């Protein structure tokens, strides 16, 4: 079964970062939305529906945004899948277009974190993991320690993910950090959850990203001619309850998300030219790429240190700078990844352009549930 692709008529972002209180969630969302509409040359009147991905935005954040943007009265839906919220909003827009329900859907991913999240994001307070002291960094730290023991990887190789992504971010005007970081800085950073330090962790961020998705009829409505990048499919899976004492880094949930992506899009892993990967922590980029089957098991750390996932390498990962450098306003990240893939597939990514990019994959993994290998995982497949 495959649904018709969604055409990306326009994308827009506000730079991710830390903004004062007066830069509200609504204001950032409106800014990103207007950029995406301008990018498409579209008026608000052409938009059939609004999908908003967010986690901490409070009740009917999407409708609050619509009332400030000028989309009041339209169908508005809010989508929460923790860090995969933005990508889930994209998925539901793709489904609505394929179903023939709408022809032009605006998707906004947005989060205002700096005034409501401190000390890192956490699972739901009722989750058993929260009761024993789990924080996200701790889960990834345990993943990293086991990965090093099982595969002979080094701390330096894992830290190389941060060095690589920060080097990429220098070329991304929307990134929270646009500066290179040296390996010794990553290794010497304040410890957060050993062996991971501050620079192994994505930051707390504010920001918004917007994507205007269309059916062929929607493209005609907007007067857009010629090919535009397409969302071929969006895979979505959930973590499964684990039993036994197997590989802590098996990432079966990532494997299943990859299989969904290939099945729904008709694209195979060998076709992927670049990946926007949910590197909420350095080690996460490594084990998730392996779970997808895009990097051989146990070799992701060495691949990173050898430059194979850098711009110009065999399979560039996170040319945008990733979450580590672009920032991670959790609900916005999935939409920001789609913005990045769109620019890459248009060939307009400037200093971070992946040469000849034809097919891209964007992966998000959101949340944790006690006893499972993850909350939600999305895989967006896009083609030129």
């Amino acid at each position, binding site marked *: 079964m495959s649904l018709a692709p969604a055409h990306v008529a326009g994308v827009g972002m506000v730079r991710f970062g830390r903004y004062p209180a007066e830069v509200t969630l609504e204001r950032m969302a409106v800014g990103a939305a207007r950029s995406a509409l301008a990018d498409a040359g579209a008026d608000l009147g052409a938009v059939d529906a609004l999908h908003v991905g967010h986690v901490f935005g409070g009740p009917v954040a999407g409708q609050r945004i619509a009332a400030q943007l000028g989309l009041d009265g339209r169908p508005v839906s809010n989508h929460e899948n923790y860090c995969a919220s933005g990508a889930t909003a994209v998925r539901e827009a793709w489904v609505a277009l394929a179903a023939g329900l709408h022809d032009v859907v605006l998707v906004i991913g947005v989060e205002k974190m700096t005034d409501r999240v401190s000390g890192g994001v956490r699972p739901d307070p009722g989750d058993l993991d929260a*009761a024993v002291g789990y924080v996200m960094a701790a889960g990834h730290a345990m993943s990293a320690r086991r990965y090093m023991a099982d595969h002979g990887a080094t701390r330096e190789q894992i830290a190389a993910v941060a060095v690589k992504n920060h080097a990429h971010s220098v070329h991304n005007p929307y990134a929270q950090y646009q500066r290179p970081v040296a390996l010794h800085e990553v290794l010497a950073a304040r410890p957060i959850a050993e062996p991971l330090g501050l620079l192994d962790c994505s930051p707390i961020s504010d920001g918004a990203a917007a994507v205007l998705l269309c059916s062929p009829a929607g493209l005609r409505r907007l007067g857009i001619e010629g090919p535009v990048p397409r969302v071929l499919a969006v895979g979505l899976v959930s973590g499964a309850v684990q039993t*036994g004492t197997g590989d802590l880094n098996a990432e079966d949930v990532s494997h299943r998300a990859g299989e969904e992506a290939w099945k729904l899009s008709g694209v195979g892993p060998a076709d992927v030219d670049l990946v926007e990967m949910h590197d909420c922590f350095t080690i996460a980029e490594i084990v998730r790429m392996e779970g997808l089957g895009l990097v051989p098991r146990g070799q992701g750390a060495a691949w990173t240190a050898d430059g194979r996932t850098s711009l110009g390498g065999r399979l560039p990962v996170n040319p945008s700078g990733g979450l580590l450098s672009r920032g991670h306003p959790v609900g916005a990240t999935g939409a920001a990844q789609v913005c990045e893939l769109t620019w890459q597939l248009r060939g307009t990514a400037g200093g971070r352009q992946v040469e000849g990019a034809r097919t891209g994959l964007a992966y998000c993994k959101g949340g944790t549930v006690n006893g499972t290998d993850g909350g939600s995982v999305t895989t967006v497949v896009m083609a030129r």
Partner: protein
Amino acid sequence: MSPPQTAARARPFRDGLLRLDPPRLLGSHCPACGTTAFPSRTFCPRCRAGDGLVETELGVEGRVHSFTVVRQAPPGVEVPYVLAQVDLPADDVRLMARVVGVAPEEVVLDMPVTLELAPFGTAEDGTVLLGHRFTAAAEVAR
């Protein structure tokens, strides 16, 4: 003389998770495929059987499969502390728990640990809410 604090009433911090005397974690065992799950579930996560599951006490001896020393936590949580993925070989179960009884820098992979109870909070009526953690086995602690 006031009675010692240990005389206070206590109960598991979550129903069905553990027994207090002797301290034991409670899981669900599937007779159909032999899989034990913790915490207890109403279905077997491995063979998906939906009935016939029985409550079972888990073994108290564990091994540290992986661990971290948490140095930054949300406000109100004291750091540092050791959080671990603990394997219970007798039941083929892995769970997450804190590890105590050993300095953070002394924790190593595969270290033997033993279940113990610890206060996780206090109920409104003053009852102590007990939860699970692991402590370094005697030969390590010495």
